[in-house]
C-alpha cells in the first residue's frame, strides 16, 4: 500500500513518522511538501524578537525522511483523485518546486495536512509581501520582523517615541495566542534594550475580550474563586503597560496608519511605526475529482477552503452548538482520504461569533495548531495502520477536540533568569456546558499561571519537539 501525506507541518510530519514506525516496509509512506525546511513554528516568536536565529528553529527535512525510509517529494499538490480516474488507482497531481513539472503520485490513502494559506490579501496592506506589516507566521517573516525591530530600536535609542501595534490583521483571524506571545516578548525585549519608555505598545485583536484566545476564554479555580482568563489577561496587560483594542476588524493598512472597525460599528484610524499583525487563514487551494473526472471540490471543501471531514456541518446558532459537532476520525466522504491539523474544516467557531453594528463579522476562528494538530496526525496514522493491516474502511482511532485537552505555554519574555511564560492546560478544548455546567471545562484540569518556570518549560519543549521532529533515537517517547 502507498500512503501519501500532503504537507509536512506538525500534523503531517507526526503522521508520517508514526506511519513509518508502525507499518511494515512493504508499504510506502510518501510525503509531499513544497518546503525544503521543517520549521518549529511556535519558536518563531523568539526569532521575531531577535532571541533565536532561523537555524535554531528549522532543519532540512529530506535527510530525515531518507534516514527513516519515507519517500519525499519537494512539490506542491494541486489535484487529488481519491477514487482514481477511469478505473485507475487513486493518485494526486503535484508540481515540482524545482522544475515546475507536473506529475502524478499513485497512492491508496491520502492525508491532507497542508496547513493554512496565509491570506494576507484579505486586508489591503497587510503582510510583509507588498504590505506594510510584519508577521511571524514563517521563519522568513520572523527574520524580517526582527530586522525591522532592530531599526526601530535604533531610532528609539536616538530619542524618538514609537507606537507598536501587535495583534490580528482581520476580524476572522485565529492564533490570537501567538500575537499574545509576541507582544509580551516584544515588551520584554524593549525593556531589555533600554527603550521601553519610548514605546507605546497596543494589542489590537478580534477577540471580544482579552484572554479569549479563540476558545471562548477559560475559567480557572484559584484563591477560592472561579476566575475568567479575561481577569488574568487584563492583569498582565496592566502590569506590563500594554494598551489594547478589542473586537477589531482591520479594513486597510497603509505605511503609517491602519483603519479598523470595532464591534460597536465605529471606524477608527491608528497611527503606527511598527506593526506585527497576523493574517487570517484559508485552506491551501486544492481540487478534488471523483472517478469520472468531475470536480467535486465544492462538496469536499467549505467556503474557506478547508476540507470537510466527519463533523456535523449543519448551520446552527451558538446556543445549539454541541461538542458532538466536532470530528472524531477526520475521515472525509472518501474513505481513503483524511484531513488533519489546520486543513480540516471545523464545524463552527468555539468563541461566540460576533458581528459589528454594520454587519462585519468579527469572530476568532478556532485554533487547531500545536498539540491538537500533532494528536490528529497520530490518530489518523494509527487508524490507517489498522485499515491497511485489516483491509478495513473503518478508522479505529478517534480524537475529537471535544475530548482532547491542550497544554499551552505562552511565552512572555525570553530569559532563563528573568523571563516568564503563562503555562496553561485546558480540558476539553471545545467546552462542554452539559458536562461542566457554567464553566464548560474541568476546573481540575483547566489551569494557568505565570512565572519563570513557564519559560523553562517552553524552552524545554522547543528542544524536545525539534529532537522528536528530527526522529533522533527514542523520538517516539516524547508525546505530542
Amino acid at each position: 500500500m502507498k500512503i501519501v501525506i500532503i504537507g509536512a507541518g506538525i500534523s503531517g510530519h507526526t503522521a508520517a513518522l508514526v506511519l513509518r514506525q508502525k507499518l511494515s516496509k512493504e508499504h510506502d509512506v510518501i510525503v509531499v511538501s513544497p518546503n525544503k525546511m521543517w520549521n518549529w513554528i511556535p519558536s518563531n516568536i523568539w526569532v521575531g524578537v531577535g532571541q533565536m536565529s532561523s537555524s535554531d528553529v528549522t532543519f532540512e527535512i529530506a535527510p530525515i525522511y531518507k534516514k527513516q525510509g519515507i519517500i519525499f517529494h519537494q512539490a506542491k499538490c494541486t489535484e487529488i483523485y481519491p477514487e482514481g480516474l477511469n478505473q485507475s488507482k487513486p493518485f494526486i497531481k503535484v508540481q515540482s518546486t524545482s522544475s515546475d513539472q507536473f506529475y502524478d503520485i499513485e497512492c491508496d490513502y491520502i492525508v491532507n495536512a497542508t496547513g493554512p494559506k496565509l491570506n494576507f490579501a484579505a486586508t489591503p496592506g497587510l503582510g510583509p509581501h507588498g504590505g506594510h506589516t510584519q508577521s511571524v507566521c514563517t521563519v522568513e517573516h520572523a527574520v524580517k520582523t526582527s530586522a525591522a525591530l532592530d531599526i526601530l530600536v535604533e531610532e528609539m535609542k536616538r530619542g524618538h517615541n514609537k507606537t507598536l501595534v501587535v495583534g490580528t490583521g482581520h476580524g476572522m483571524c485565529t492564533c490570537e495566542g501567538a500575537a499574545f506571545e509576541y507582544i509580551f516578548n516584544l515588551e520584554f525585549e524593549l525593556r531589555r534594550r533600554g527603550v521601553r519608555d519610548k514605546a507605546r505598545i497596543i494589542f489590537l485583536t478580534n477577540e471580544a475580550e482579552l484572554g479569549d484566545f479563540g476558545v471562548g476564554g477559560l475559567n480557572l479555580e484559584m484563591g477560592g474563586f472561579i476566575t475568567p482568563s479575561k481577569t488574568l489577561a487584563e492583569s498582565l496587560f496592566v502590569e506590563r503597560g500594554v494598551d489594547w483594542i478589542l473586537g477589531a476588524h482591520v479594513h486597510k493598512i497603509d505605511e503609517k496608519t491602519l483603519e479598523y472597525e470595532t464591534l460597536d460599528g465605529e471606524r477608527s484610524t491608528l497611527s503606527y511605526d511598527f506593526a506585527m499583525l497576523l493574517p487570517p487563514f484559508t485552506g491551501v487551494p486544492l481540487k478534488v475529482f471523483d472517478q469520472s473526472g468531475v470536480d467535486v471540490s465544492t462538496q469536499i471543501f467549505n467556503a474557506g477552503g478547508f476540507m470537510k471531514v466527519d463533523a456535523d456541518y449543519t448551520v446552527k446558532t451558538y446556543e445549539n452548538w454541541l461538542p458532538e459537532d466536532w470530528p472524531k476520525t477526520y475521515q472525509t466522504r472518501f474513505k481513503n482520504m483524511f484531513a488533519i491539523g489546520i486543513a480540516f474544516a471545523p464545524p463552527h467557531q468555539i468563541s461566540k461569533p460576533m458581528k459589528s453594528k454594520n454587519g462585519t463579522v468579527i469572530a476568532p476562528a478556532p485554533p487547531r495548531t500545536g498539540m491538537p494538530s500533532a494528536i490528529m496526525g497520530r490518530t489518523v496514522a494509527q487508524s490507517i495502520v489498522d485499515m491497511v493491516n485489516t483491509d478495513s474502511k473503518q478508522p479505529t482511532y478517534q480524537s475529537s477536540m471535544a475530548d482532547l485537552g491542550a497544554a499551552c505555554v505562552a511565552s512572555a519574555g525570553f530569559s532563563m533568569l528573568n523571563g516568564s511564560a503563562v503555562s496553561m492546560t485546558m480540558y476539553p478544548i471545545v467546552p462542554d456546558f452539559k458536562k461542566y455546567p457554567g464553566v464548560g471545562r474541568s476546573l481540575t484540569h483547566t489551569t494557568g499561571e505565570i512565572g519563570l518556570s513557564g519559560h523553562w518549560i517552553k524552552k524545554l519543549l522547543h528542544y524536545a519537539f525539534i529532537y522528536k521532529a528530527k526522529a533522533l533515537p527514542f523520538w517516539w517517547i516524547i508525546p505530542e
Partner: protein
Amino acid sequence: MKIYEAKNYLAARPNRTTLFLRSFLPWQMIRFILINIRMTVMIAKSHGRQVEKEK
C-alpha cells in the same frame, strides 16, 4: 470602540509577594515540577482513543 489604556484601567494586579515568587528560583523549580506533572496528566488524557474495530 476606545483604546483601553493600561495605566488607567482597573484590573487585578499582582502584589509584591506574587511578583517575587514569579522569579524566585527555589519556588519556580517546584512550580516547574508541578506544572510538568499537570501537563503530563493532560497529555495522558488527550492522546485519542481506540474504538472498536470493524468486524
